[in-house]
């Protein structure tokens, strides 16, 4: 074990290098950086209708017949339309109560880029069923649309339908499908489905929405800046309950602004992301210094609560971006998202404590470990803070809304209120930190002295 501990830093470094994101493909080639597909899904009687518009440039691998400099040969296009419709049925999968549906009927059409019938389902379906372009029309092979109408037999129109877009999976999130679901009863829903999103329910049950948003909230915690902040927050302490209380204070503050942001307009404030970067960076620097000089669990309530308030706005924006998948269950989803975040914070805390335990017992020793780790994290925080200040300054120089400042200020004061609660906690939530390298410097939480 001692040998393993000796090599642990090297192993960790190699593992970190392996986990680093690799440079993605460039936007080169003939494909634009964003490719938008449009569609409608409508159950009707014993049929489910998928009406979809796909840019021709996505179908170049199917080799459409051409004439002249590169115009589609509309005289010989019929066979190709059938092949493209079959490929569409394979690449956009539809499900009824979990069972994959198979299209039994299809119609297709070539359209010019200026064609506008996809503003609505009826006009789009009528367009595909209507007259084709005159065969003399010059449609350049990568400048138009392929429009298809697929019909799927179903058991029941009010069933639970789901969609899985697998068009050109290698392009990932460069591909987006704007799809409108038109149920037999109830309101229609519009989704922006990005490549690689997996199977998505078009009218999710409450438990499906809850599961999805718990997972989303859970995953959102594990961003690099949040993890660095957490590590710096907990580094000099081993008191699980006391740290859990601090993290829950952070999560509580975060939940307040997350909810406010999700139901209000705070997520539209342009300078909040830059403020968050600056605050996290500054907080990491302060905590790093505090870790070395005189760490206090109670002061961390303030730090955690304030960072939580600002971080909640960012999470609120994430929730707003994904709210489309909540269906009719916005409140359940919002609550689930918060639960996911809280679970994520708790798990991240436990992982951090385990990792720090290994680091301090096997590699560096506790006191030296706190200093080294704080120095490394503080250095990272310093750069984040400087970058954040530049971004913030640039954003603020273009105008500042007084209402936005007041709104954020109000929530920061709420964070201070949460932080102030630390003064009224019982003793088990305090506790002394790991002893410093230089004896006599750490003050800890001497609650009885004041």
């Amino acid at each position: 074990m001692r040998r393993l501990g000796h090599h642990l830093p090297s192993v960790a470094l190699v593992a970190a290098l392996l986990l680093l994101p690799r440079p993605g493909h460039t936007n080169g080639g003939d494909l634009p950086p964003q490719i938008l597909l449009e569609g409608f899904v409508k159950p009707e009687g014993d049929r489910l209708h998928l009406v979809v518009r796909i840019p021709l440039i996505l179908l170049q691998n199917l080799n459409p017949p051409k004439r002249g400099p590169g115009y589609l040969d509309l005289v010989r296009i019929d066979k190709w339309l059938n092949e493209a419709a079959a490929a569409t049925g394979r690449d956009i999968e539809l499900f009824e109560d979990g069972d994959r549906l198979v299209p039994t009927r299809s119609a297709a059409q070539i359209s010019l880029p200026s064609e506008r019938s996809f503003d609505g389902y009826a006009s789009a379906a009528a367009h595909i069923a209507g007259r084709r372009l005159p065969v003399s029309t010059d449609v350049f092979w990568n400048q138009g649309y392929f429009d298809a109408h697929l019909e799927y037999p179903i058991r029941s129109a009010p069933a639970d339908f789901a969609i899985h877009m697998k068009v050109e999976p290698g392009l990932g999130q460069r591909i987006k499908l704007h799809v409108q679901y038109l149920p037999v009863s109830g309101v229609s829903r519009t989704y922006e489905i990005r490549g690689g999103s997996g199977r998505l329910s078009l009218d999710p049950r409450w438990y499906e929405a809850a599961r999805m948003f718990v997972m989303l909230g859970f995953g959102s915690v594990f961003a690099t800046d949040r993890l660095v902040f957490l590590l710096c927050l907990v580094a000099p302490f081993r008191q699980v309950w006391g740290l859990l209380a601090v993290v829950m204070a952070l999560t509580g503050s975060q939940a307040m602004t997350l909810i406010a942001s999700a139901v209000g307009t705070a997520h539209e404030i342009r300078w909040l992301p830059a403020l968050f970067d600056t605050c996290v960076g500054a907080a990491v620097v302060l905590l790093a210094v505090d870790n070395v000089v005189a760490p206090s669990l109670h002061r961390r309530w303030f730090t955690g609560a304030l960072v939580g308030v600002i971080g909640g706005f960012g999470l609120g924006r994430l929730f707003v971006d994904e709210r489309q998948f909540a269906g009719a269950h916005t409140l359940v989803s919002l609550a689930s998202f918060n639960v996911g975040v809280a679970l994520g914070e708790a798990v991240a805390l436990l992982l951090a404590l385990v990792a720090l335990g290994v680091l301090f017992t096997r590699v560096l020793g506790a006191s030296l470990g706190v200093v080294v780790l704080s120095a490394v994290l503080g250095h990272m925080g310093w750069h984040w803070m400087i970058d954040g200040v530049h971004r913030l300054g640039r954003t603020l120089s273009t105008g500042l809304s007084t209402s936005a400042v007041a709104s954020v200020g109000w929530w920061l004061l709420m964070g201070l209120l949460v932080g102030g609660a630390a003064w009224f906690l019982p003793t088990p939530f305090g506790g002394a930190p790991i002893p410093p390298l230089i004896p006599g410097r750490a003050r800890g939480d001497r609650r009885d002295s004041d």
Partner: protein
Amino acid sequence: MKLARYVYLALLVIVLLALGVWQLFPGQADADRGESKVPPRFVVDPDWPKQLPNNWLIGQVGGLAVDSHNNIWIIQRPRTLTNDEAGAVPYPPPYFPITTPPTTPRLTPRSDCCVPAPSVMQFDRKGNLLRAWGGPADTQNNAYNATCKAPSCQWPNTEHGIYVDKDDNVWLSGNGGAVVTATGAQGRDDQILKFATDGTFLMQIGKAGASTGNGDTVNVRQPADFGVDDEAHELYVADGYGNKRVIVFDTKTGAAKRYWGAYGAPPCASPGNTRACVTGAYSPSAPPDPDFRNPVHCIRLVADLVYVCDRVNDRIQVFKKNGDFVQEFFEKTNTLGNGSMWDIAPSIDRRQTFLHVTDGENNHVYHMLRLTGEIVGQFGHNGRNAGQFHWIHVLDIDAHGTIYTGEVDTGKRVQRFVSEGNSPDRD
């Protein structure tokens, strides 16, 4: 100390309540969102576009257009690069005009950079170069080189106008005179070219050096700019540096449909108007010119009207699509030289309240009320720094309200200005 804690908490609660009550006042939160005659503010994005690949450098930016997918197209002039700017290739390249006296050739590179870029370039909103093709500097694009060959496809001598219609066809023009190069000679830019987005040549209207003047319905003469009525399949041309008219073509066949001059009358020196065109210098104190001056520099279709820049006359004339004159706006009328009204882009609000107008003589972008012509704001100043201009030539606006500009003379650059305030830009 316990008392201090309670005082702290009490103060916090009071401040919170005060702020909460203040928030409840109607209109406070919406103070910045109301409809306004105040134009949006624009802030230069110094990081746009990103560095070009292949050691490429652009020359003067003759034209700029935003397509329906919010990509930005420019047409630039590689033959305006100087000896030091094109330092990585022998100079002058064989396609450069032969000067009098001839430039002493340099057969080897003189520096690390640069190589003249192809004339047509497409960028996305983040500044990535998506495509580059066209013109004599294009040595790579197969579609362009395989399909654009004289005499059916005559690349202009001096690249000027670009427009991308809703069907993604790319329309190009030039304003150059006849040119002799080491590889051949070509007449004046009296033609318009139509390409597919990948550079495949589709159609040419007119022929180099063939224009017979303002009454010629087959050729144009050094056309400056375009607009396309997608529903009617009509191409509106600001024609231009040689002629003094607006002419409309069928986008499918290239056949001329109608043309008119200033005030909707037949242009000077044409079959319907035998009066000779004005040749003297513009004078602010003289009566308004009955004809367009050289050049008729821009044309924009906005709200079913046709806006035309009569650049040196310091005015914008507005027409119906059939050519009937509607009104004119005189702006910065003391501007001499190259004039004040160079290019137009309408604001993106529903009513298209503003026209953003470039002035390459005074080097500003004006915000003008579209219905009255009143200038209510401006940005930019003569200079070389980010956000300043030297001979700002063209501009266009994307669906997010972001403005893109191009400069000529020694400006030779494109810039991006992000809208703040009225038009959120959340990418």
